Structure formats: C-alpha cells, structure tokens
C-alpha cells in the first residue's frame, strides 16, 4: 500500500498506509490522524480537510479541481499548494506523498 506522511502544525509526523482508490482524507481518518475534520464526509462542501502539499509533490499531486478551488478560496489561510484532501485520490504514483496540516481548519 502507498505510504502517506501527514505532518501536523507542531511538526508531529504520522506515516500511514493508504488504500489505493480511497481519498487522502479517508486515509487520515482511517488512521486517526488529528487535524482533519472532514465535516461533510468528503463531498467537497466544507473545506475542513484542508492540507498543504509538500513542494516536492505538488507536480505529481496536481492542483485543485473547479469545485474544490471555489471552496478553498473561502479560506483566508489558503496557500498556493493548498488542496482539499477529500478530492485527492490515493494511487501508487502518490506512494511517499507528504502533506502538511494547517494549524486550524476553518
């Protein structure tokens, strides 16, 4: 299974095994990674699964889709590498992916 590393705002790392085909958000939830709320359960409608993709992975992970972009836009802490993790699908290509978690979800 691909491995994903979530890094909390305080630097704590969580390396988890992620199931191919599920979302990165789900991988975090399944492995009890703190810092992701996912209030809408993965429907791209709450923006509380916000992550920042590590710069080495931005190209591979790609940018936000249109609906995701409009949700992300309503977050004052949005960065150029921001994504909603429920809109990122785990694949073998993303084995080793590293994402940073924001200090707060909004």
């Amino acid at each position: 299974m691909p491995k994903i590393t979530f890094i909390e705002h305080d630097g704590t790392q969580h390396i988890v095994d992620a199931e191919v085909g599920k979302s990165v958000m789900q991988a975090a939830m399944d492995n009890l990674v703190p810092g992701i709320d996912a209030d809408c359960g993965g429907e791209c409608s709450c923006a509380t699964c916000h992550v920042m993709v590590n710069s080495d992975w931005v190209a591979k992970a790609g940018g936000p889709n249109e609906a995701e972009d409009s949700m992300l836009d309503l977050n004052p802490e949005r960065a150029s590498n921001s994504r909603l993790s429920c809109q990122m699908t785990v694949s073998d290509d993303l084995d080793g992916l590293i994402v940073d978690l924001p200090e707060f979800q909004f």
Partner: protein
Amino acid sequence: MSEAPTLNMADFDPKDLAIEDIDVSQRSLWIEDKKMAFFDRLRDEAPVHYCKDSEYGPYWSVTRFKDIMEIDGNWQDFSSEPAITILEPEEDFPLPMFIAMDPPVHDEQRKTVQGSVAPANLKLMEKTIRERTQKVLDGLPVGEQFDWVDRVSIELTTQMLATLFDFPFEDRRKLTRWSDVATGDEESGIVESEEARQAELYECLEYFMGLWQERADKDEGTDLVSMLAHGEATKNMSPQEFLGNLILLIVGGNDTTRNSMTGGVWALNQNPGEYAKLRNNPGVIPNMVSEIIRWQTPLSHMRRIANRDYELNGQTIKAGDKVIMWYLSGNRDERSIDRPDEFIIDRDRARQHLSFGFGVHRCMGNRLAEMQLRILWEEVQKRFHMVEVIGEPKLVPSNFVHGYTEMQVVLHPH
C-alpha cells in the same frame, strides 16, 4: 401571498392527510411544536415534496440529509438570490447581503470579512470571551429561579457581537433588539407594523453609519466594521447594502448561538444520563458542542431558487421553483445519522451535521459559535452541579429561527 390556507396542519395527525396536502411551513405546526412528525412522514414517503400552495406560495421541501447536501453544495443550479428564507423579501425594503448573493459577488464580499472570524483571529479573542463568560456566570443567583435565555444566552452572544464589532459596550442590547426586529414581523409580536420595523432598522443603520465614519477615518483595525469600511469589495457599498450585511452578521451571530446555549441546557435536562457523562468527563465538551448544534439546529431551513430543471430523487424541480432545505429534518435522518432522535454527547462523527449548511455559503461563524459554546460549558461545569430547567422553555413562533424566548432555571452548586 395567496388566499388563506385550507387545512390547519396542527389539527391533524400527518398520516391522516393526503401527502400532497401537507404544508410543513404552516406557523401553527411550529407554535404547537408538531412539525417533527410531519417531517418524519415526508422523509419516508416524499423526500422531495411539492407543496402547491402555502402562505409563502408554492415550494419544494427537501428533507433527507444527502439531498440537502446535494443542493447546498450546488450554487450553480440553486441560487441563494434574492433571499434565503421561505418568506419573500419586502420589495420596497431590500436588504442585500452576501448570504443571499451568488458567486462571484458573494465570494468577494465574504472574503473581506471572514478573516475576523477565522481561527487565527479567534485565538486572540478567546481570552476576552472567557473572561466575559466567567463574569456573567459569577453574577448569576444560585438556588433561585431566573431566565437563562435573558441572563446567559442573550447576554453572552450580545457581548460577543459587541466584541466583534467593537460596538459601544453599554449600548450592546441594541444589537439584540435589532436582531429580533430584523427577523420578526407583525405576527411574531416583536414589532407593531412593517413601518415600525423599517423605522427601527433605519435607526440601526444610522448608528452604524456613525461607527463606519469613525472607523473609515482611522487605519484599518481587526473589528468587522473597520474591515467593511476599508475592504476593497465593501467600502463603496450603498447604505442599504451596508445595513444588509450588518444585519447578516448580527442575526447570524446572535439568534443561532443564543439558541444553542439554551438548547444545550434543555437537552441535558431531558437526558440525565448524558448529563452524568458530562460531569464525569469534561473532555467530551468539544464533541458535545457539535451534538448540541445538531440537536438544536438553530436555523430550521435555508431556501434556494432552481436555475434550471433539476432531477432529484425522482422529482423534477423546475427552473424558477422555490426549494426549501429543511436542515431540522435532515439532522434527524436515520439514513445518514445513527439514532438521530437521541441526544448523545459522545457520538461518533458528531461534526457531520447540517446545522451550518454546506458549500460556498457554509456558515462563516461556525468556529466562533463552537468556541463560545465550548467556553460556556467549560465554565459552567467548573461552577455548577446542575443547571436545572423549571417547567418547559417557550418556543420562538417561527419556521426559520428554531429557538427559545424564555427558559426558567435554577442553579445547583457542586
């Protein structure tokens, strides 16, 4: 408005009515608190239900969790303009506000103010809010009956708004009054007439114009009025638009949080087992806050207008139709929520409720509301064994604001 409704819903058991005759918007159902059984029937038999005639004209009711999420998340097909409640706006007195605007204007306006209630700013406000909460609680009589709505819920939410607007503290109850006036009408008994209502709202506008001028003349601060006065997308707003956005923040931040503060006490009183859990484990408070907000659902609905014909659950909603998303019903949908009628303070996935809405209009103040409620319960638990409700609370007679006008309580110390 159409002719008087033919059937008075509150006189019936929902199962004795033909499904097409059901009108969940009728005020009597809300005054007599009989709406829930009607929603149960709609969810089971007609989750996308057309009411051909009502006090508010024809409208669709969407009552299941997933269907509500689908509509709320789709601003392209479901417009929030020109208003977000079932009631048609007053044509001669429009109050433009970004909750009732679609992108892109919605986004521009929301972006100018959302920083004030984003978590980073809230962290700065937390200490003030806690101190003020402590002061209010320490001033309450112990062992003596009083109205929790007035002395705690209204007082705390009003103080919070005053903080957010940097509003003169001694005048803060004006905010409460304006919030009531903005959502009230003649039938609610809050104002005597529509003219009286508009006159009071003008008074609100004048007051805030004064604050606006004062803030516009200074450098930009972190309070909301200053942000509006300096924001690119908002600084040239018309007075009517300024008033609209103020009312949005006053109402948005006021009634909703207020009724959650009251609803939580009421829910715990009806569920002594949950109260015991809370006493044994104050760590459950953040989770309980979400459960309180779900259980209360402070806003019963939001409305949309379909931009095009749209298939939902076997029904065709036509372009131009009015669609009511009944959050109160979706939050009791057992298809999406386990044991939805029960109040369970340590429930799993407590955050996954509809009370804040979803999509681009998702409640801007949701983190502020949660923080206030968390602080309130942390401080209440430090002081009191029980906040005991005496009798039953009095309900707001509305199908939009789901809350209480009065709740008598007695405090019991540890």
